[in-house]
């Protein structure tokens, strides 16, 4: 994991990919996210940590408007992607989600072949003119997903037949196949064993070359290992946001301190 060396962790905050300004999210009457302001840098891994129900996943899902599918969910404030408000009326969430890909907690390959899993996104977005181009996109995505060598001989076998870790990497390959600019990951390793987790973490670090990656995780060690920036959410508030090294050695807020060091309160 040479990329994760400490020297390399310096974050260039001059290229802001996503900026959230005064974001509030309500589920019916409950106030899930309270006035969150955050700036997420390009080509950086940003980790969202916090106890269950703190709103980190909710906030993540706001970033590609996945919350739109929930009727009672209401979002106020501005979320800017490349300085464009993604909650603007003119924005089509489908177009947005092509730019902001997502990988979920549970590996959820489609019950189709490995090839079709990866090819689905490019197909519906019309990224390939012909079969050869599509083949190329699929191979590239699977290579990026660090799973090409394992599946190249059985591209037409069902994706659901892979192991958990392979499935998750397949899902990552599927997400990168549409050439997104931001990759959201909602606890991508929570269902994986340590080896698969390490492989996915290595992959995340490689993806940082091209994407802005935002990862929600319950494992603070994982946040510490893969991210350059860490945001700590607590009861819907963004309590602390800073360089990962600083958050884990010297957090400024006592709530962060208690949470990451496993203390009561």
């Amino acid at each position, binding site marked *: 994991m040479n990329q994760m060396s400490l020297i390399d962790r310096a974050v260039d905050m001059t290229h802001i990919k996503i900026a959230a300004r005064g974001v509030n999210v309500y589920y019916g009457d409950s106030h899930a996210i309270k006035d969150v302001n955050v700036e997420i840098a390009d080509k950086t891994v940003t980790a969202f940590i916090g106890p269950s129900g703190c709103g980190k996943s909710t906030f993540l899902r706001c970033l*590609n408007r*996945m919350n739109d*599918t929930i*009727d*009672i969910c209401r979002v106020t404030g501005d979320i800017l992607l490349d300085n464009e408000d993604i909650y603007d009326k003119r924005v089509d969430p*489908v*177009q947005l*989600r*092509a730019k902001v*890909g*997502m*990988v*979920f907690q*549970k590996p*959820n*390959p*489609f*019950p*189709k072949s490995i090839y079709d899993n990866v090819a*689905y*996104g490019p197909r*519906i*977005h019309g990224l390939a003119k012909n079969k050869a181009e599509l083949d190329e996109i699929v191979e590239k995505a699977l290579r990026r997903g660090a799973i090409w060598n394992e599946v190249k001989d059985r591209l037409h076998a*069902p994706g*659901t037949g892979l192991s958990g870790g392979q499935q998750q990497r397949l*899902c990552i390959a*599927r*997400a990168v*196949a*549409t050439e997104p600019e931001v990759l959201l990951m909602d606890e991508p390793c929570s269902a994986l064993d340590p080896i698969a987790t390490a492989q996915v973490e290595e992959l995340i670090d490689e993806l940082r070359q091209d994407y802005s990656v935002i990862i929600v995780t319950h494992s603070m060690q994982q946040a510490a290992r893969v991210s350059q920036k860490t945001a700590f959410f607590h009861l819907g508030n963004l309590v602390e946001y800073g360089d990962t090294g600083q958050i884990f050695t010297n957090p400024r807020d006592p709530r962060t301190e208690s949470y990451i060091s496993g203390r009561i309160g």
Partner: protein
Amino acid sequence: MTDAPVSKPKSSLLVQDARTKRRNASEARFKIYGLAAIGIGCAFLLTLLTAILFNGVPAFKQTFVTLSVTLDPAAIEDAENSTLKTAKYKAMVSEALLAELTEVGIQTDMDPTKLGDMLSSATGDQIRTYALAHPEQMGQTVEFTVLGSSRVDGYMKGRVTREALANDKNLDAEHLDIVDQLAAAGKLSLKFNPAFIFGSDASEKRPEQAGLGVSVVGSFIMMLVVLFLSLPIGVAASIYLEEFAPKSRLTDLIEVNISNLAAVPSIVFGILGVAVFIQFGGGSLGIDALRKSAPLVGGLVLTLMTLPTIIISTRAALKAVPPSIREAALGVGASRMQAVFHHVLPLAAPGILTGTIIGLAQALGETAPLLLIGMVGFVATNYPSGFFDAFTAPNSAMPAQIYEWAKRADPAFYERAWGGIIILLVFLLALNIIAVILRSRFERRW
């Protein structure tokens, strides 16, 4: 092995304590209850099947008499000129029967007309139809296989006894002697009767001639209507309700009502069919196709009945598709519709199919609403003249036909009702087998 001292159990696992014993006993009791319940269920099912087979199988056989009839041109011309044409033909048959008897050496002094009571009243029509269709055979002797009367048939099947004939004015003991001798001579026998499966209904006087075929066509046409209306409507409604509709009071209300509709007695749908389709659609609006006894109307009524079933089962199938699949599709930038049609629907297809076929099977077995819209058994006397005519020509359906037979007085019809049930069950079985095959087909695609 270590030399560590062996610990002694606080309580031995080798001895069951009182609580465990009680628990095991109650478990064993429960298993017995369960087995008993299954046993009772199986016993009922067995009784049902035995009764159906025992009573119904004879309906597939019928008593036939082999006769040589000379098609005398003079007699035929005479018959054609009379008002009661078939009666004259019947007389010809009776003569032929008498001749047949003397030929095989059976002595009788019964008068030919009375002798003719042994044969079905349909034979006259049978000879006439043949004679008119084959003028080239005129003057020749043709061998016919004609139906025995229902009494003779009943005697052959053991349903009619000599004692019972004492009160019967159609047949007497002498007939039965002749029947016995004819059977011994091989001229009269029980044979498989395809006309029961493929024929049309007959009048109350001629149970031996009645068949289920036309009603089968009626049922089939209705199933077509139900399938092609309720499946697309039901699936579209379910997809909208399940995947797109915002959760509001209105959709809650719609949901509750759909569930309630599934429990509405079918007769209500029947009266609705009469009022809406026949009286309003056919009467007030003057749509000619919506007429009384038309399978099209029957199909529409059954569609109304089947829709809730299909909607409920389709929604259940859609609900059973894990949300992660939808999220995955949305996550790579599919629209909601793409997510549903590319991923959710294929996964829900087996469930939808099962629901649809259960709905169809229900509709296939439905009787009450059909009776209200006039699809009663006795209208199923003629095959429709073509595919489109089959939708509008008055017809019945299998269960309505069976009901019709069951309520007629003659025990010969009663036997046919049981036989009809066997055919109906075969169709239901076929539907279920199709469902199983389709489901396994779809499920094999992971």
